[in-house]
Protein backbone atom coordinates (compact mmCIF):
# COMPACT_ATOMS: atom_id res chain seq x y z
CA UNK A 1 0.00 0.00 0.00
CA UNK A 2 2.72 2.43 1.12
CA UNK A 3 4.92 1.64 -1.88
CA UNK A 4 1.99 1.98 -4.28
CA UNK A 5 1.48 5.50 -2.90
CA UNK A 6 5.18 6.32 -3.16
CA UNK A 7 5.38 5.04 -6.72
CA UNK A 8 2.39 7.09 -7.79
CA UNK A 9 3.65 10.23 -6.03
CA UNK A 10 7.00 9.83 -7.77
CA UNK A 11 5.30 9.35 -11.14
CA UNK A 12 3.33 12.56 -10.57
CA UNK A 13 6.42 14.49 -9.42
CA UNK A 14 8.37 13.26 -12.45
CA UNK A 15 5.72 14.79 -14.71
CA UNK A 16 5.51 18.12 -12.91
CA UNK A 17 7.77 21.17 -12.72
CA UNK A 18 8.43 20.17 -9.09
CA UNK A 19 11.23 17.95 -10.42
CA UNK A 20 13.38 20.47 -12.26
CA UNK A 21 12.22 23.89 -11.04
CA UNK A 22 13.86 23.75 -7.57
CA UNK A 23 17.15 22.50 -9.02
CA UNK A 24 17.35 25.25 -11.62
CA UNK A 25 16.51 27.77 -8.91
CA UNK A 26 19.26 26.28 -6.70
CA UNK A 27 21.89 26.62 -9.43
CA UNK A 28 20.73 30.13 -10.34
CA UNK A 29 20.97 31.36 -6.74
CA UNK A 30 24.49 29.91 -6.56
CA UNK A 31 25.29 31.68 -9.84
CA UNK A 32 24.16 35.15 -8.76
CA UNK A 33 26.00 35.18 -5.42
CA UNK A 34 29.45 35.83 -6.93
CA UNK A 35 27.97 38.86 -8.68
CA UNK A 36 26.52 40.11 -5.40
CA UNK A 37 29.56 39.67 -3.11
CA UNK A 38 32.27 40.44 -5.64
CA UNK A 39 35.11 38.40 -7.15
CA UNK A 40 37.00 37.70 -3.90
CA UNK A 41 37.52 33.94 -4.30
CA UNK A 42 38.68 33.41 -0.69
CA UNK A 43 35.62 35.12 0.78
CA UNK A 44 33.36 33.27 -1.62
CA UNK A 45 34.85 29.88 -0.75
CA UNK A 46 34.45 30.65 2.97
CA UNK A 47 30.75 31.47 2.74
CA UNK A 48 30.01 28.89 0.01
CA UNK A 49 28.40 26.25 2.29
CA UNK A 50 26.12 28.93 3.72
CA UNK A 51 25.16 30.15 0.25
CA UNK A 52 24.38 26.65 -0.96
CA UNK A 53 22.36 25.80 2.15
CA UNK A 54 20.24 28.93 1.85
CA UNK A 55 19.80 28.22 -1.86
CA UNK A 56 18.71 24.64 -1.10
CA UNK A 57 16.33 25.85 1.62
CA UNK A 58 14.70 28.39 -0.69
CA UNK A 59 14.55 25.84 -3.50
CA UNK A 60 12.75 23.46 -1.13
CA UNK A 61 9.96 26.03 -0.77
CA UNK A 62 9.16 26.12 -4.49
CA UNK A 63 7.32 22.79 -4.88
CA UNK A 64 5.23 23.20 -1.70
CA UNK A 65 2.36 24.68 -3.74
CA UNK A 66 1.90 21.48 -5.70
CA UNK A 67 2.65 18.96 -2.95
CA UNK A 68 -0.81 18.58 -1.42
CA UNK A 69 -3.15 21.31 -2.69
CA UNK A 70 -4.01 19.60 -6.03
CA UNK A 71 -4.95 16.39 -4.18
CA UNK A 72 -7.23 18.34 -1.86
CA UNK A 73 -8.85 20.19 -4.77
CA UNK A 74 -9.45 17.31 -7.18
CA UNK A 75 -10.88 14.80 -4.72
CA UNK A 76 -7.84 12.52 -4.53
CA UNK A 77 -7.68 12.83 -0.74
CA UNK A 78 -11.37 11.89 -0.53
CA UNK A 79 -10.74 8.82 -2.65
CA UNK A 80 -7.80 7.78 -0.46
CA UNK A 81 -9.69 8.43 2.78
CA UNK A 82 -12.82 6.62 1.61
CA UNK A 83 -10.65 3.53 1.09
CA UNK A 84 -9.78 3.64 4.76
CA UNK A 85 -6.17 4.74 4.22
CA UNK A 86 -4.68 6.58 7.18
CA UNK A 87 -3.75 10.14 6.24
CA UNK A 88 -0.52 9.61 8.20
CA UNK A 89 0.43 6.89 5.72
CA UNK A 90 -0.43 9.15 2.79
CA UNK A 91 1.70 11.92 4.31
CA UNK A 92 4.64 9.59 4.99
CA UNK A 93 4.57 8.36 1.39
CA UNK A 94 4.42 11.93 0.16
CA UNK A 95 7.44 12.89 2.31
CA UNK A 96 9.52 10.02 0.94
CA UNK A 97 8.54 10.72 -2.68
CA UNK A 98 9.12 14.45 -2.29
CA UNK A 99 12.50 13.85 -0.66
CA UNK A 100 13.62 11.59 -3.51
CA UNK A 101 12.27 13.96 -6.16
CA UNK A 102 13.98 16.93 -4.53
CA UNK A 103 17.27 15.57 -3.20
CA UNK A 104 18.45 13.39 -6.07
CA UNK A 105 18.39 16.24 -8.64
CA UNK A 106 19.80 18.62 -6.00
CA UNK A 107 22.82 16.41 -5.32
CA UNK A 108 23.34 15.91 -9.04
CA UNK A 109 23.39 19.69 -9.49
CA UNK A 110 25.63 20.26 -6.48
CA UNK A 111 28.95 19.98 -8.43
CA UNK A 112 27.75 22.67 -10.84
CA UNK A 113 26.56 24.97 -8.07
CA UNK A 114 29.75 24.24 -6.11
CA UNK A 115 31.99 25.32 -8.98
CA UNK A 116 29.99 28.54 -9.35
CA UNK A 117 30.75 29.55 -5.75
CA UNK A 118 34.31 28.14 -5.80
CA UNK A 119 33.94 25.47 -3.14
CA UNK A 120 36.84 22.99 -2.84
CA UNK A 121 36.41 19.25 -3.19
CA UNK A 122 36.69 18.35 0.53
CA UNK A 123 34.16 20.97 1.56
CA UNK A 124 31.96 19.88 -1.35
CA UNK A 125 31.82 16.28 -0.15
CA UNK A 126 31.09 17.44 3.38
CA UNK A 127 28.29 19.62 2.06
CA UNK A 128 26.86 16.77 0.00
CA UNK A 129 26.76 14.58 3.10
CA UNK A 130 25.16 17.36 5.12
CA UNK A 131 22.53 17.94 2.44
CA UNK A 132 21.81 14.23 2.31
CA UNK A 133 21.25 14.21 6.08
CA UNK A 134 19.38 17.51 6.25
CA UNK A 135 17.03 17.35 3.27
CA UNK A 136 14.70 14.73 4.82
CA UNK A 137 13.87 17.37 7.41
CA UNK A 138 13.19 19.94 4.68
CA UNK A 139 10.95 17.46 2.85
CA UNK A 140 9.06 16.66 6.06
CA UNK A 141 8.54 20.35 6.89
CA UNK A 142 7.48 21.03 3.31
CA UNK A 143 4.78 18.36 3.38
CA UNK A 144 3.48 19.54 6.79
CA UNK A 145 3.30 23.15 5.57
CA UNK A 146 1.67 22.03 2.32
CA UNK A 147 -0.93 20.01 4.24
CA UNK A 148 -1.68 22.91 6.59
CA UNK A 149 -2.16 25.38 3.74
CA UNK A 150 -3.70 23.01 1.17
CA UNK A 151 -7.17 24.55 1.23
CA UNK A 152 -6.05 28.18 1.49
CA UNK A 153 -5.75 30.49 -1.45
CA UNK A 154 -2.16 31.66 -1.85
CA UNK A 155 -1.15 28.98 0.65
CA UNK A 156 2.29 28.60 -0.89
CA UNK A 157 3.51 31.95 0.43
CA UNK A 158 2.16 31.16 3.88
CA UNK A 159 3.82 27.75 3.75
CA UNK A 160 7.18 29.49 3.29
CA UNK A 161 6.59 31.43 6.51
CA UNK A 162 5.85 28.16 8.31
CA UNK A 163 8.87 26.26 6.98
CA UNK A 164 11.68 28.83 7.26
CA UNK A 165 11.73 29.31 11.06
CA UNK A 166 11.34 25.59 11.69
CA UNK A 167 14.20 24.82 9.30
CA UNK A 168 16.67 26.90 11.35
CA UNK A 169 18.19 23.97 13.29
CA UNK A 170 18.78 22.14 10.02
CA UNK A 171 20.44 25.21 8.54
CA UNK A 172 22.65 25.81 11.60
CA UNK A 173 23.92 22.24 11.88
CA UNK A 174 24.10 21.86 8.10
CA UNK A 175 26.30 24.91 7.55
CA UNK A 176 28.47 24.04 10.54
CA UNK A 177 28.96 20.49 9.33
CA UNK A 178 32.73 20.57 9.95
CA UNK A 179 32.28 21.24 13.67
CA UNK A 180 32.52 18.10 15.81
CA UNK A 181 29.13 16.46 16.32
CA UNK A 182 27.29 18.78 13.96
CA UNK A 183 26.45 16.03 11.49
CA UNK A 184 25.00 13.93 14.29
CA UNK A 185 22.87 16.81 15.50
CA UNK A 186 21.79 17.42 11.90
CA UNK A 187 20.79 13.78 11.55
CA UNK A 188 18.98 13.98 14.89
CA UNK A 189 17.03 17.06 13.80
CA UNK A 190 16.09 15.27 10.59
CA UNK A 191 15.00 12.15 12.45
CA UNK A 192 12.79 14.10 14.84
CA UNK A 193 11.13 16.07 12.05
CA UNK A 194 10.63 13.02 9.82
CA UNK A 195 9.16 11.06 12.73
CA UNK A 196 6.71 13.79 13.75
CA UNK A 197 5.77 15.17 10.35
CA UNK A 198 3.46 12.36 9.13
CA UNK A 199 1.30 12.78 12.23
CA UNK A 200 1.16 16.57 11.96
CA UNK A 201 0.43 16.45 8.22
CA UNK A 202 -2.04 13.60 8.69
CA UNK A 203 -3.98 15.57 11.28
CA UNK A 204 -4.06 18.58 8.96
CA UNK A 205 -5.30 16.47 6.05
CA UNK A 206 -8.05 14.88 8.11
CA UNK A 207 -9.61 18.20 9.08
CA UNK A 208 -12.78 18.97 7.25
Amino acid at each position, binding site marked *: *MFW*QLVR*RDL*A*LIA*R*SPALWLPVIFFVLVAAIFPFAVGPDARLLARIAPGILWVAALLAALLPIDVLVA*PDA*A*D*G*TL*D*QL*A*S*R*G*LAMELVAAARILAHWLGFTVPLLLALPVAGVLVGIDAAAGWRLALALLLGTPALAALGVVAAALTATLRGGGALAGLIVLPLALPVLIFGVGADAPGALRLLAAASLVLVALAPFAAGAALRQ*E
Partner: protein
Amino acid sequence: MPEPLVATEIACRRGGRLLFEALSFRLEPGGALCLEGPNGSGKSSLLRLLAGLLEPAGGTIAGGGVRTYLGHDVALKPGLTLAADLGFWAGLDRGRARLPAAMAAMNVAALADIPCRHLSSGQRRRAGLARVLAAGADCWLLDEPTQGLDTASMALLATAMAAHRAAGGMIVTAVHGDIGLADPQHLRLG
Protein backbone atom coordinates in the same frame (compact mmCIF):
# COMPACT_ATOMS: atom_id res chain seq x y z
CA MET B 1 -24.34 -11.33 0.41
CA PRO B 2 -23.26 -8.18 2.25
CA GLU B 3 -25.03 -6.95 5.37
CA PRO B 4 -27.83 -4.42 4.83
CA LEU B 5 -26.74 -0.79 5.17
CA VAL B 6 -28.40 0.58 8.30
CA ALA B 7 -28.26 4.19 9.46
CA THR B 8 -29.72 4.84 12.90
CA GLU B 9 -30.66 8.29 14.12
CA ILE B 10 -27.71 9.98 12.45
CA ALA B 11 -27.14 13.70 12.65
CA CYS B 12 -24.80 15.88 10.65
CA ARG B 13 -23.37 19.24 11.61
CA ARG B 14 -21.36 21.28 9.11
CA GLY B 15 -19.75 24.62 9.89
CA GLY B 16 -21.78 24.92 13.10
CA ARG B 17 -25.07 24.38 11.25
CA LEU B 18 -27.25 21.33 11.83
CA LEU B 19 -28.00 19.88 8.39
CA PHE B 20 -30.19 17.00 9.56
CA GLU B 21 -30.78 14.89 12.64
CA ALA B 22 -32.62 11.73 13.68
CA LEU B 23 -32.21 10.35 10.18
CA SER B 24 -32.68 6.59 9.84
CA PHE B 25 -32.90 4.23 6.90
CA ARG B 26 -32.26 0.62 6.02
CA LEU B 27 -31.07 -0.53 2.62
CA GLU B 28 -31.23 -4.25 1.78
CA PRO B 29 -28.76 -5.93 -0.61
CA GLY B 30 -29.90 -5.25 -4.16
CA GLY B 31 -31.60 -2.05 -3.09
CA ALA B 32 -31.12 1.52 -4.20
CA LEU B 33 -31.68 4.68 -2.22
CA CYS B 34 -32.18 8.06 -3.88
CA LEU B 35 -31.38 11.10 -1.73
CA GLU B 36 -33.51 14.04 -2.71
CA GLY B 37 -33.84 17.58 -1.54
CA PRO B 38 -32.95 21.14 -2.41
CA ASN B 39 -29.37 22.42 -2.72
CA GLY B 40 -27.64 22.53 0.64
CA SER B 41 -30.01 20.08 2.30
CA GLY B 42 -27.18 17.68 3.12
CA LYS B 43 -27.30 15.08 0.34
CA SER B 44 -23.57 15.28 -0.35
CA SER B 45 -22.79 15.42 3.36
CA LEU B 46 -24.84 12.26 3.98
CA LEU B 47 -22.89 10.49 1.23
CA ARG B 48 -19.62 11.68 2.79
CA LEU B 49 -20.81 10.35 6.17
CA LEU B 50 -21.52 6.97 4.57
CA ALA B 51 -18.10 7.03 2.85
CA GLY B 52 -16.37 7.65 6.18
CA LEU B 53 -15.13 11.08 5.11
CA LEU B 54 -17.10 12.82 7.86
CA GLU B 55 -17.94 11.78 11.40
CA PRO B 56 -21.66 11.87 12.23
CA ALA B 57 -22.56 14.30 15.02
CA GLY B 58 -24.75 11.54 16.40
CA GLY B 59 -26.12 8.09 15.60
CA THR B 60 -24.51 5.09 13.95
CA ILE B 61 -23.92 3.71 10.46
CA ALA B 62 -23.46 -0.04 10.10
CA GLY B 63 -23.29 -2.74 7.44
CA GLY B 64 -23.23 -2.11 3.75
CA GLY B 65 -20.08 -4.18 3.22
CA VAL B 66 -17.23 -2.44 1.39
CA ARG B 67 -18.36 0.98 0.22
CA THR B 68 -16.90 3.05 -2.59
CA TYR B 69 -17.50 6.73 -3.19
CA LEU B 70 -17.60 9.03 -6.20
CA GLY B 71 -18.03 12.71 -5.42
CA HIS B 72 -18.23 15.77 -7.63
CA ASP B 73 -14.46 15.80 -8.04
CA VAL B 74 -13.35 12.84 -10.11
CA ALA B 75 -9.73 12.81 -8.86
CA LEU B 76 -8.01 12.22 -12.20
CA LYS B 77 -4.47 13.56 -12.53
CA PRO B 78 -3.95 15.73 -15.62
CA GLY B 79 -0.49 14.33 -16.35
CA LEU B 80 -1.29 10.61 -16.13
CA THR B 81 -2.92 8.54 -18.84
CA LEU B 82 -6.38 7.26 -17.98
CA ALA B 83 -5.12 3.67 -17.82
CA ALA B 84 -2.30 4.62 -15.44
CA ASP B 85 -4.60 6.65 -13.22
CA LEU B 86 -7.40 4.09 -12.97
CA GLY B 87 -4.77 1.35 -12.68
CA PHE B 88 -3.44 2.93 -9.48
CA TRP B 89 -6.88 2.95 -7.84
CA ALA B 90 -7.68 -0.55 -9.08
CA GLY B 91 -4.37 -1.63 -7.55
CA LEU B 92 -5.38 -0.16 -4.18
CA ASP B 93 -8.76 -1.93 -4.50
CA ARG B 94 -7.12 -5.20 -5.66
CA GLY B 95 -9.31 -4.91 -8.74
CA ARG B 96 -6.86 -4.81 -11.64
CA ALA B 97 -8.52 -7.87 -13.14
CA ARG B 98 -11.90 -6.11 -13.08
CA LEU B 99 -10.62 -2.86 -14.60
CA PRO B 100 -10.76 -3.69 -18.35
CA ALA B 101 -14.38 -4.83 -18.08
CA ALA B 102 -15.25 -1.77 -16.01
CA MET B 103 -13.64 0.57 -18.55
CA ALA B 104 -15.49 -1.19 -21.37
CA ALA B 105 -18.79 -0.97 -19.48
CA MET B 106 -18.46 2.81 -19.17
CA ASN B 107 -17.12 3.12 -22.74
CA VAL B 108 -13.74 4.59 -21.77
CA ALA B 109 -11.55 1.68 -22.93
CA ALA B 110 -10.65 3.58 -26.11
CA LEU B 111 -9.40 6.52 -24.00
CA ALA B 112 -6.92 4.41 -22.02
CA ASP B 113 -3.78 6.00 -23.47
CA ILE B 114 -4.98 9.58 -23.40
CA PRO B 115 -3.64 11.90 -20.67
CA CYS B 116 -6.49 12.87 -18.36
CA ARG B 117 -6.02 16.58 -19.05
CA HIS B 118 -7.46 16.02 -22.54
CA LEU B 119 -10.68 14.35 -21.36
CA SER B 120 -14.00 16.16 -21.48
CA SER B 121 -16.07 16.49 -18.32
CA GLY B 122 -18.43 13.72 -19.43
CA GLN B 123 -15.49 11.44 -20.19
CA ARG B 124 -13.99 12.22 -16.78
CA ARG B 125 -17.29 11.39 -15.12
CA ARG B 126 -17.43 8.08 -17.00
CA ALA B 127 -13.84 7.34 -15.97
CA GLY B 128 -14.81 7.99 -12.34
CA LEU B 129 -17.72 5.60 -12.70
CA ALA B 130 -15.40 2.99 -14.22
CA ARG B 131 -13.27 3.31 -11.07
CA VAL B 132 -16.41 2.63 -8.99
CA LEU B 133 -17.21 -0.46 -11.07
CA ALA B 134 -13.63 -1.75 -10.82
CA ALA B 135 -13.54 -1.28 -7.04
CA GLY B 136 -15.73 -4.36 -6.62
CA ALA B 137 -17.40 -2.78 -3.60
CA ASP B 138 -20.75 -3.87 -2.17
CA CYS B 139 -22.19 -0.40 -1.82
CA TRP B 140 -21.79 2.44 -4.31
CA LEU B 141 -22.10 6.00 -3.01
CA LEU B 142 -22.65 8.26 -6.01
CA ASP B 143 -23.01 12.03 -5.81
CA GLU B 144 -24.99 13.17 -8.86
CA PRO B 145 -23.44 10.48 -11.08
CA THR B 146 -25.19 11.61 -14.26
CA GLN B 147 -23.72 15.11 -14.12
CA GLY B 148 -22.21 15.88 -17.53
CA LEU B 149 -23.26 12.55 -19.07
CA ASP B 150 -24.94 12.33 -22.46
CA THR B 151 -27.98 10.11 -23.04
CA ALA B 152 -25.98 7.12 -24.26
CA SER B 153 -23.68 7.28 -21.22
CA MET B 154 -26.67 7.56 -18.88
CA ALA B 155 -27.96 4.31 -20.38
CA LEU B 156 -24.55 2.68 -19.75
CA LEU B 157 -24.71 3.83 -16.14
CA ALA B 158 -28.26 2.54 -15.74
CA THR B 159 -27.18 -0.86 -17.11
CA ALA B 160 -24.16 -0.99 -14.80
CA MET B 161 -26.28 -0.04 -11.78
CA ALA B 162 -28.88 -2.69 -12.62
CA ALA B 163 -26.16 -5.36 -12.94
CA HIS B 164 -24.63 -4.28 -9.63
CA ARG B 165 -28.00 -4.53 -7.86
CA ALA B 166 -28.79 -7.88 -9.50
CA ALA B 167 -25.56 -9.20 -7.97
CA GLY B 168 -26.71 -8.10 -4.52
CA GLY B 169 -24.99 -4.71 -4.49
CA MET B 170 -26.41 -1.54 -2.99
CA ILE B 171 -26.50 2.00 -4.34
CA VAL B 172 -26.99 5.27 -2.50
CA THR B 173 -27.12 8.26 -4.77
CA ALA B 174 -27.87 11.96 -4.60
CA VAL B 175 -30.00 12.84 -7.61
CA HIS B 176 -32.04 15.52 -9.25
CA GLY B 177 -34.58 13.66 -11.37
CA ASP B 178 -34.63 10.14 -12.72
CA ILE B 179 -31.30 8.40 -13.40
CA GLY B 180 -32.68 5.06 -14.52
CA LEU B 181 -32.83 3.18 -11.23
CA ALA B 182 -35.65 0.63 -11.14
CA ASP B 183 -37.89 0.85 -8.11
CA PRO B 184 -35.61 2.80 -5.71
CA GLN B 185 -36.33 3.89 -2.15
CA HIS B 186 -36.50 7.64 -1.67
CA LEU B 187 -35.18 9.70 1.19
CA ARG B 188 -36.10 13.35 1.28
CA LEU B 189 -33.77 15.77 3.08
CA GLY B 190 -34.36 19.36 4.07
